[in-house]
């Protein structure tokens, strides 16, 4: 294991290298702690996309000229990088989508419509992002499907005590590998095994874990796994659906159009092979190249080292914030740093998250107030909003100290 050189990493992210003039005219270093919503990206990613646009861009899979050939190679090369990054057995198991949300909608629409009918049950957890709730509710409303819920404990972990009863007869279990609100790391392999034992397929929303932890889909044993490029140093506009090849092959297409067909007549069409079957229309070509560059960047450090850095930083943050704010600050989720990702959802006593964030902005500290698109979970904790700080490869203990200073200032500002 090697320690990350954060100063060197930060030099790769020009956006972090800026100062913010606050409302009262003070000039402060920008402290970015909102990577769980969307990360920043290094020059390597921006330049890779630039290079493509300046030298090698054309539509993919169509032209016979050299430029189109180069663009196609770059796009397919990115697919191969993604496959290797998550341990997929073949790049054909990688479908590029718009984001994790679209990937989940694809599963619900395509696999769901082909395999679920009235009276069937599917299982979600209370800690899901709306992206892994609403597509299933849409399907349930249309098809008359029952949705069951795995509850969470007050520590913010899944309550698996009734798992067998909840999964009994269910056709699908869809769950997040890491909570975007609490940072909780869920026992993915155990959940996948339980789903399979009940004959259900397992869908993993890995939008928060793939950017921060080593991932191997074969080891996890899963059926479907989704994530977004923009949370892992890549560009917006591209996400990934991974699924076992036989599943993809058996599924009907999602969107129809160019690129996803083998043949079209006035009567009908036949679909292309996977993954093309699920990539209708011109895909996000430069975005795929940018995602590939982000993966190269992360692999240069090694995901084990990225993870270790974040565990250390999270431990430092939990310690520092508790020392500085004591019982004025509630931090939700598992107290043990190794059991969570670098996401801290906080509540400052008697100060609403929105107001906390406003004072933090005055300190040039960027965090996120709100329900984090997980309203069922927020309801479980009886809060409308939390203030969420999240860490990534470019954050260090100085950032945590700035967060602590700003939280103390917010506490003092609103003190009675």
């Amino acid at each position, binding site marked *: 294991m090697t320690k990350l050189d954060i100063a060197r990493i930060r030099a790769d992210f020009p956006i972090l290298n800026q100062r913010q003039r606050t*409302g009262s005219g003070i000039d402060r270093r920008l402290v970015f702690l909102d990577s769980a919503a969307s990360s920043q990206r290094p020059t390597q990613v921006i330049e890779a996309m630039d290079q493509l646009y300046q030298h090698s861009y054309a539509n993919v899979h169509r032209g016979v000229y050299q430029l189109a050939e180069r663009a196609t190679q770059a796009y397919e090369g990115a697919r191969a990088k993604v496959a290797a990054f998550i341990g997929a057995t073949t790049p054909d198991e990688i479908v590029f989508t718009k984001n994790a949300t679209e990937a989940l909608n694809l599963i619900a629409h395509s696999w769901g419509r082909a395999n679920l009918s009235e009276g069937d049950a599917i299982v979600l957890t209370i800690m899901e992002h709306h992206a892994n709730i609403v597509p299933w509710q849409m399907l349930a409303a249309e098809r008359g499907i*029952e949705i069951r819920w795995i509850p969470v404990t007050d520590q913010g972990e899944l309550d698996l005590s009734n798992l067998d009863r909840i999964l009994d007869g269910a056709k699908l279990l869809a769950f997040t590998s890491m909570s975007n609100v609490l940072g909780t790391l869920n026992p993915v392999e155990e959940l996948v095994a339980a789903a399979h034992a009940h004959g259900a397929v397992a869908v993993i929303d890995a939008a928060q874990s793939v950017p921060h932890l080593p991932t191997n889909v074969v080891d996890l044993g899963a059926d479907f796994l989704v994530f977004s490029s923009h949370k892992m140093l890549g560009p917006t506009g591209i996400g990934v659906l991974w699924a076992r090849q036989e599943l993809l092959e058996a599924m009907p297409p999602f969107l129809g159009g160019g690129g996803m067909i083998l043949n079209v007549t006035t009567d009908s069409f036949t679909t292309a092979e996977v993954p093309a079957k699920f990539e209708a229309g011109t895909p996000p070509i430069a975005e795929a190249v940018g995602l590939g560059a982000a993966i190269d960047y992360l692999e240069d450090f090694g995901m084990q080292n990225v993870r270790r850095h974040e565990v250390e930083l999270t431990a430092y943050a939990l310690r520092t914030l508790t020392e500085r704010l004591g019982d004025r600050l509630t931090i939700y989720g598992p107290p043990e740093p190794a059991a969570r990702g670098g996401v801290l959802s906080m509540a400052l006593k008697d100060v*609403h998250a*929105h*107001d906390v964030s406003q004072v933090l902005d005055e300190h040039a500290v960027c965090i996120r107030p709100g*329900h984090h698109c997980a309203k069922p979970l927020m309801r479980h904790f009886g809060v*409308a909003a939390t203030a969420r700080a999240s860490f990534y490869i470019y954050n260090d203990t100085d950032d945590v100290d700035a967060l602590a200073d700003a939280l103390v200032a917010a506490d003092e500002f609103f003190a009675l």
Partner: protein
Amino acid sequence: MAGLEDLYREIILDHYRSPRNRGELETPPAHRAEGFNPLCGDEIVVYVDVDDEGIIEDIKIGGQGCSISQSSASMMSAAIKGKTLGEARKMTTAFKQLMSIHETNVGGDGSESELDPEAEVDTTVKLGDLEALQGVVKFPTRIKCATLGWNTLTEALTLGSAPADPASPIRPKNH
């Protein structure tokens, strides 16, 4: 850029710490509406009791939210209690104008557009303490917090005159 003091005036913090007219009213006779700020998860409930003469006899505020949404709703409740429906509507328009929102359709769908410079400001409406919220305009993301209570009031009053038609949630069938 404005400093925090422009946003968090003392009177705002006072209403946040000691909100006026908090609670519930029996429905019916009171009308009830819920408002959501989808950005931050704030939820507000407004109860209004309007008598036969069209006077707002009582108003109560429930729910939870930030200092701006809570103080705005609290000041609103103090300002419109005892007023006629017409006065309450005028005050809503005046408050929206203070927030740089020109109401195209006060009683209707709540659609809002940028302040129309031609729109006349009704100077006869006195907003009093509510003017302390003027600083919110310099923090654009917070305007929705300030107007949450007012939009919910509008909805409660509209529901009062028309048959109730709460936004119908989409639910899974069969259970």
